[in-house]
């Protein structure tokens, strides 16, 4: 197992480089460049100004040379310098990463827990009205555009009831510390995490439900019933675990996308996360920053793919032999 993990990690490093290279060309294929964008914002700029910027960013060099310089930097754990923000990319990302992880992980846990729970409940009541109700509700959350739901949540809980802060990561200027600060952040977290979580919930709910129904037809469920086990235990221990296989795959997929997956939520809730950073970098063609975010996101995806595979082996002993 350990060898398996080490091998995968080694491979992942190589893949990362390959992915970065591809990303590099992909990004450069999009029209426009950071010099033009920055010149565009400057309110005035002449050709000299833009040429200056290009030179400063190294954009005047041939593309392959640029790639070489970038990759060399990456190999030395240097993600380069953000053109626009005039700061090392790594610093910018590390600044934002905790907020994003906090938000997306919470949402992930909410969606996974609520989703599988709802799926289990629905599957236990298959065909009844409560099944339909649960399914429809989950779909409602899913099909509602996120920003719409988010704004409604803010209007309701923030503007109307004034229970929860509607945006931001913490109360700016309050200068809380310690536990007080943690609580403050927690309060700010509730709305965005729930909105995001409810959105993803539907996927888990539907997947769990379908899978549970499929598994509940299998023979070993009959054995379990013959033991006199309570339906609840059968559901949980026998059906649920077997039904979790596709859900695990899906969860791994989603977890990998945590870094970049919350652009809209971060925007609406003014959450200072990576998603927004990426989006801005993309809009501004801040190549280094964008590549940096893609790099982190790729690393996350690979990591979670690995975790999923390990988890899979854990959940399904049959695969372990292979």
């Amino acid at each position, binding site marked *: 197992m350990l060898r398996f993990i080490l091998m995968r990690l080694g491979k992942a490093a190589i*893949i990362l480089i390959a*992915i970065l290279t*591809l*990303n590099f060309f*992909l*990004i450069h*294929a*999009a*029209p426009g460049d950071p010099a033009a964008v920055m010149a565009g914002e400057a309110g005035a700029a002449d050709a000299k100004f833009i040429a200056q910027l290009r030179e400063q960013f190294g954009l005047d060099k041939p593309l392959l040379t640029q790639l070489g310089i970038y990759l060399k930097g990456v190999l030395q754990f240097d993600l380069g310098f953000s053109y626009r923000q005039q700061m090392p990319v790594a610093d910018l990302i590390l600044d934002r990463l905790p907020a994003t992880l906090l938000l997306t992980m919470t949402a992930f846990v909410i969606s996974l827990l609520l989703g599988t729970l709802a799926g289990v409940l629905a599957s236990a009541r298959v065909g009844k009205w409560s099944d*339909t109700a649960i*399914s*429809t509700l989950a*779909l409602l959350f*899913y*099909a*509602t*555009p*996120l*920003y*719409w739901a988010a*704004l409604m949540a803010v209007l309701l809980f923030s503007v109307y009831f004034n229970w929860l802060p509607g945006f931001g990561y913490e109360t700016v200027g309050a200068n809380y510390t310690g536990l007080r600060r943690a609580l403050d952040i927690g309060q700010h977290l509730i709305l965005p995490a729930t909105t995001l979580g409810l959105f993803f919930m*539907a*996927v888990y709910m*539907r*997947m769990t439900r*379908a*899978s549970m*129904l*499929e598994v509940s*037809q299998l023979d070993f469920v009959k054995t379990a019933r013959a033991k006199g086990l309570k339906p609840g235990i059968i559901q949980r221990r026998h059906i649920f675990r077997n039904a979790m*296989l*596709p859900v*695990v*795959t*899906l969860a*791994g*997929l989603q977890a*990998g*996308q945590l*870094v*970049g*997956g919350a*652009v*809209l939520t971060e925007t609406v809730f003014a959450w200072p996360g990576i998603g927004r950073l*990426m*989006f801005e970098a*993309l809009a501004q063609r801040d190549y280094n920053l*964008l590549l940096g*975010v*893609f790099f982190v*996101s*790729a690393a996350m*995806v*690979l990591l979670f*793919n690995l975790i999923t595979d390990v988890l*899979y082996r854990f959940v*399904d002993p*049959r*695969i372990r032999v*292979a």
Partner: protein
Amino acid sequence: MADFWKRFSRNRGAVIGLAILAIVILVALLAPLIFPQSPWRMVQRPFLPPFSMDQYPLGTDALGRDVISGLAYGAQVSLLVGLVSTVAALLIGIPIGALAGYFGGWVDDALMRFTEFFQTVPSFALAIVLVAIFQPSIESIIAAIAIVSWPPVARLVRGEVLSLRSREYVEAAILSGQTSLTIILRQVLPNTISPIIVLASLMVATAILLESSLSFLGLGDPNLMSWGYMIGAARTVIRQAWWLSFFPGVAILLTVLALNLIGEGLNDALNPRLARRGK
């Protein structure tokens, strides 16, 4: 086929879903007949609330355009985007996942690395980059959405196939001399159908909403009316004109609901254990 229909129709929800979808498709097809005027035409004063003028039952938008006509025309584009990109994503994702899971070894490795590439770039960002590169148009939007949505399909299918390929009935098929292709198509894939259906019916909604986000960023096809466009455009005036996002939202929801109900019906109809339920 008749048999299949009989089984399918036993699920009342599925029939309702099919009916809703049929209506949506019908409206989409007949839009030019019902609303001969372009949905972009500014026909009344802006922000006319719904039900205040018989001629424009769902009101008008920020430029005084008829909402109901937009909904009808939007159905065309949104359905197209949702369905075509989902089908395309399935057509890419299922074979890749199935081949990877079935053959394992280096095939799996190669295909999964390939998949990983598409997966590692956050899908929203990838979609933006792709549309930006290829210029916004309905084709490039559909292609971009398909390209960003197939990796989950591939990984899901692979996971399922991985655990199915060691089943004895697959071995039996190997022995009986069936080619790998037949085995994958006939023995393995049918047994992965249920999670795929679930995923696919949700993907349609994601696609419609992704198109909306793209058009919100100015990367939609600006000459085509779609539900996503309507919702995106209504976003800024939610507080003034709830109906502008509400009606297209309901349209999307109904369509998604319909597709999910149909998916469920399909699932039941394809499940041999439920096949003969009820006389």
